[in-house]
């Protein structure tokens, strides 16, 4: 084996070339790790608000709460099976609508949608949320509470010009406001981009009395899911679809998450083609310039295989250097959060980049792969150098 120190020193001799090549690989790692972190961020946001023993009930044929709807009277049927957790507040019926709101500080066309969720009093304990400021709305009144992700970021749709924040209101229809009395947090989940109020008041405001969009049910144990699903979905009168809360929530953001991370990964693969050519050029030049050295090494008794592994190792070292630079740079992204429209639910989704060991392991493996592919041909060339000719040149 050629000593590893030989490779490290060789890389340092050509500082500019080494750095330029490593930087190219760093760009690939940056884009790849960024895409993976984004996917991780969305997954974490989804998992943050899901419990394994919670299920969501929608009307059969509906893919989301917006298009779903069934009569309030069905709630009793959802409550009766034995799998439902004992005690009050295990079943809550909710109404979900989206309202159009202009971004605070944006121009007139900069409109987006925010989700309004009406729930019974038990909703605040059913969902795992905490009060950040203000107070919880009093049940049966037009009071409402907003998630911290949208606090102050939108204007009241009535055109009053006031931001949606504590002390102001949202007009659902003319003179039918929801008064904001507080802000809540939901461990970074998508609920934080919603407005929550009383189910009856919101339904009355919208003229949808007696209708529910969806129901959430707490089961005694996650293992009861299949039995419960079976009972409800077999009932032809009921005509509902039962899903685990986590599955439902991830299906609601899989479009956006898939599009964004898919786009990132495709771009990273394209980038890596260019970066691999860059690595190959650099390693090829290294081999060409060092043929005399290689000849000397061969004359000293190092075999072809030793030369091959030595140059492959140098290529991997180069790409790992790039990976380290890329991973350090990508950590900057964890400071950013941005909001895009979730085109499945039409509501805002706040996206963050979340680092995890898996992200960096994948990035490292990808960079080693790039080094191996880019360095293979030059390494084979190096192994083929004839010691006699090389030392004569």
């Amino acid at each position, binding site marked *: 084996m050629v000593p590893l120190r030989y490779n490290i020193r060789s890389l340092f001799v050509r500082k*500019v*070339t080494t750095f*330029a*090549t490593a*930087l*190219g690989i760093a*760009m690939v790692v*940056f*884009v790849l790790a960024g895409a993976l972190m984004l996917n991780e961020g969305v997954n974490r946001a989804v998992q943050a608000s899901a419990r394994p023993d919670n299920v969501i009930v929608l*009307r*059969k*044929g*509906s*893919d989301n709460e*917006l*298009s779903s709807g069934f009569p309030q009277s069905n709630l009793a049927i959802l409550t009766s099976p034995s799998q439902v957790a004992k005690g009050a507040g295990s079943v809550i019926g909710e109404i979900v*609508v*989206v*309202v*159009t709101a202009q971004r605070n500080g*944006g121009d*007139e*066309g*900069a*409109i*987006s*949608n925010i989700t309004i969720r009406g729930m019974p009093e038990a909703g605040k304990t059913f969902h795992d949320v905490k009060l950040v400021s203000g107070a919880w709305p009093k049940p049966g009144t037009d009071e409402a509470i907003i998630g911290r992700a949208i606090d102050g970021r939108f204007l009241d*749709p009535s055109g009053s010009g006031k931001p949606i924040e504590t002390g102001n209101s949202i*007009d*659902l*229809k*003319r003179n039918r406001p929801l008064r904001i009395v507080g802000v809540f947090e939901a461990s970074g989940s998508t609920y934080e981009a919603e407005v929550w109020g009383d189910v009856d008041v919101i339904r009355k405001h*919208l003229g949808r009395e007696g*209708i529910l969009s969806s129901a959430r049910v707490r089961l005694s144990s996650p293992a009861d899911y299949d039995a419960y699903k079976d009972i409800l979905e077999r009932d032809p009168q009921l*005509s509902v679809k039962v899903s685990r809360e986590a599955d439902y929530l991830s299906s609601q953001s899989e479009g956006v998450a898939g599009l*964004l991370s898919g*786009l990132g990964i495709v*771009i990273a693969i*394209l*980038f890596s*083609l*260019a*970066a691999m*050519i*860059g690595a*190959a*050029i*650099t390693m*090829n*030049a290294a081999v*060409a*310039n060092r043929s005399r050295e290689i000849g000397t090494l061969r004359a000293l008794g190092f075999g072809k295989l030793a030369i091959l592994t030595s140059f492959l190792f140098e290529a991997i070292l180069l790409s790992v250097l790039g990976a380290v630079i890329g991973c350090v740079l990508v950590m900057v992204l964890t400071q950013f959060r*941005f*909001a*895009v*429209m979730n085109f499945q639910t*039409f509501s805002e989704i706040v*996206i963050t980049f979340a680092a995890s060991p898996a992200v960096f392991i994948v990035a490292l493996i990808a960079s080693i792969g790039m080094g191996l592919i880019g360095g293979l041909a030059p390494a084979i060339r190096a192994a083929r150098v004839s010691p006699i000719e090389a030392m004569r040149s």
Partner: protein
Amino acid sequence: MNLATYARRNMFRRRGRTIWTMIAIALTVLIFCLIRTVLVSWEGSAEDAAQDRLASRHKVSFTMNLPLKYITDVRAVDGVVGATYANWFGAKDPLKRVPFMAGLAVDKDSFFEVSKEFSVDPAQLADWKATKNGVILGDILAEKLETGVGKTLKIESDIYPGDWEFKVAGIYTPNRKTADRMTMVMHWDMLNDDPRNAWGKDRLGWMLVNIKDSTRSAEVSKAIDRKFDEMDDQTLTMSERQFALGFVGALAAVLDALGYVSVGILLIMVLILANTVAMSVRERTNEYGVLRAIGFTPRHVATFILGESILVALAGGLLGVLLTFLLINNLAGPALVKQGGFFTFFHTPGWLMGLALLIALIVGVFAGLFPALRASRLRVTDALRRVD
């Protein structure tokens, strides 16, 4: 041997390296054009949206509907030349041959008059008007659903439960490059008279309004909204273009990120070319000393290096533009549009290819400039003495 010959021969002295550098540059140009084409197609769909057509919907939420009589009021507003209305049907293919399709329930008499981007054969249109369960399909949608005029079509809805059976009465083709080709157009009456729509009876989803003078779109929009200001259901009226821009704006963060990424690939281009040039210059430092010693000026040396860098960059750029033309405009683009997904057009415009070439030229200058300056400043004795 003249100077040009010298430069050309020098360029291909390390043939493998030069060719690989060109390929890498071509690749970066292709990737740059690809990312930029995504942006152009995305933003272009908004720019191309009709400016002389207004859309009017419920002010509070696009999921809420408006009383049917509003259409009569809107038609009477000054400056309006025609108006129609539609409801979202939430159509889904039960056999999942298409992941997404648009289903509109429209006023049969006015919809195709106002929506001029859809062109329908007059005979098919007349036939559709006379058939209550008739639908007109976009050309790509019809192809994907493996159906044609005269056939029956079973569609589900995620709003109105159960099966819906239609008769395909016609196929429309787009008149504009941004017109959606995945839409199913059904009769509004069919939906309105169905018991499954009892809660939404005699309510319309949104209105489309043609105006006489596109420069007055803001004014007419305000006049419409003012008309319903005192009602229970208020309206939000804007030009279709403004709505489309708002939609693009909601994804602005993604577009910005793509923009940054496209600059990232240019950085890789610079790194690869600068690396190649720097390596060549280092290998030939001795020769530059010889050239200087036999009477070539520093300017000659700088020109050799810069010229070589620019030549490689331009050759790579040209190759990249050629690849873009072949792969994006003639292969992937048409396939993507045929797929009937997100993009109604996907085409790298000529100016973008020109821009990519210009960038390649600038990158060539940039990558060659510093090695050229450094080499031209070398003292002859130092250059001759240097061994690598």
